[in-house]
């Protein structure tokens, strides 16, 4: 897809089915713009976005997004927030899923609470459950763990890993500026540099699954992978053979 010349320039990116793709880059590099374009929230100046062959011109129920600042409705309870997507899409028959997701994210006990009563980590669990409730073909995650403290962040990463590895293995695209997070989560990492944002580096992550944060960091390939990515972020115009 191609974004507006000022923000994204000649970005061609394919996310494969059931792949967990991480996009990393420094702030202002255009990675959030890329995500919002894929979500259909932003129009493209030229170029296109397509999902399983269908062009994306506006937001579609086939994608769901997890937001950096949670994006919860303060006047809705946890349960109502999780069921929100299904309700607006007129899929009331699927609301049974809500309870299963509340259980999966340890939210059952606070199902009647309002977001103001929750910690940041709990809020993002609600945000994740809400996105998963609509069972999207493509899950978009916009720096989902950057507004919570480090300990909660790691716990959330592990929960998402577990859920994603054990269950549907849906296609996921996560945008982050955290190298370690990208390595832990991703099947493949794409580095966006800019402005204007372009793909400067691409790296498949072949570390074994199922993963968890501790084991991955102890893995012998971890330091090498981390250094490769770090160098690519520092000298983002170095074009490496892996680049497609």
């Amino acid at each position: 897809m191609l974004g507006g010349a000022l923000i994204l320039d000649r970005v061609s990116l394919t996310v494969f089915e059931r792949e967990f793709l991480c996009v990393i880059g420094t702030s202002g590099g255009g990675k959030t713009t890329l995500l919002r374009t894929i979500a259909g929230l932003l129009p493209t100046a030229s170029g296109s976005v397509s999902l399983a062959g269908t062009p994306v011109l506006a937001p579609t129920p086939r994608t769901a997004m997890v937001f950096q600042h949670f994006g919860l409705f303060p006047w809705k309870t946890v349960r109502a927030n999780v069921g929100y997507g299904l309700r607006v899409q007129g899929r009331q028959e699927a609301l049974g899923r809500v309870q299963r997701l509340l259980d999966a994210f340890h939210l059952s006990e606070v199902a009647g609470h309002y977001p103001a009563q929750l910690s940041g980590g709990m809020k993002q669990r609600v945000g994740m459950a809400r996105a998963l409730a609509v069972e999207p073909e493509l899950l978009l995650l916009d720096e989902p763990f950057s507004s919570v403290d480090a300990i909660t962040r790691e716990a959330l990463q592990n929960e998402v890993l577990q859920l994603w590895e054990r269950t549907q293995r849906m296609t996921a695209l996560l945008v982050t500026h955290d190298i370690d997070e990208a390595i832990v989560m991703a099947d493949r990492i794409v580095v966006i540099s800019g402005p204007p944002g372009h793909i400067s580096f691409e790296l498949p992550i072949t570390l074994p699954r199922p993963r968890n944060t501790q084991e991955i960091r102890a893995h012998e390939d971890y330091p090498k992978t981390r250094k490769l990515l770090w160098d690519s972020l520092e000298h983002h115009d170095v074009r490496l053979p892996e680049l497609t």
Partner: protein
Amino acid sequence: MSAATSRFSRPASGGPGSWRPRRRLTPARRWALRLASVAVLLLAWEIYGQLLNPILLSSPTAVVAAGAGMIADGSLPQALAESLIVLSLGLASGVAVGVTIGLLAGRSETLAALLELPVNAVYATPAVALIPIIVLWFGFEVTAKVVVVFLFVVFPVLINTTRGVREVDPELIEVARTFCSSERRMWKDLILPSALPYIVTGVRLAIGRALIGVIVAEYYTALSGLGFLIARSANSFQTARMFVPIVVLALLGVVLTALLEWVERRLVRWRETPS
């Protein structure tokens, strides 16, 4: 924002090192302080009033006695009924129109641009100045009085409502869009709930202005209601009787505001933080 949030704000510091967290009052203590302030004011009025000529100030006991008489002879209930009709019609129509236009203007840049200058101009014009033309158009009776109250009420409600719709969190709009919400659902899920505190603030202002509007209307069109009672008692130097409708107006303001706060608490339960 509204008073409900400002209650939780930190006190201004009085200098380096003087910052202390504000201690929350217990409900019982808050009520005791509220009643104590009223008691002290009434007592001071009573003592000072006894020292002066009753035409100049009168006193709470004399006002209560006069009030009892005015209830017995039916003049107060009749005046109150007249004023309440004007107040409720003016307030209801002003709030209804203000909220409706405010919501539309908050959502439509075009409508907002069209309304901005005329609304600001009429809002800034003292409504009293418009009374001669209102009388020309609507006469001296209830219709004209309701129009006066309406003019006092509609603008703060309209302006606050528009602001409330504007202040909708853009991230929440994005959330609604990614989940493919219809515009109609967006109103229900998003726009109305987030505009509500602003609407309540507008109505709170409107209650005070409506009470002013009622008395202004009753003075400047055909004398009637509580305004008539005040004017007639003052003209005949019956100061104690004059204070009765004034106290009734003050009570009306307190009761209406309390009612509004009760409604607001029921509607915005979500804002309560964990205990």
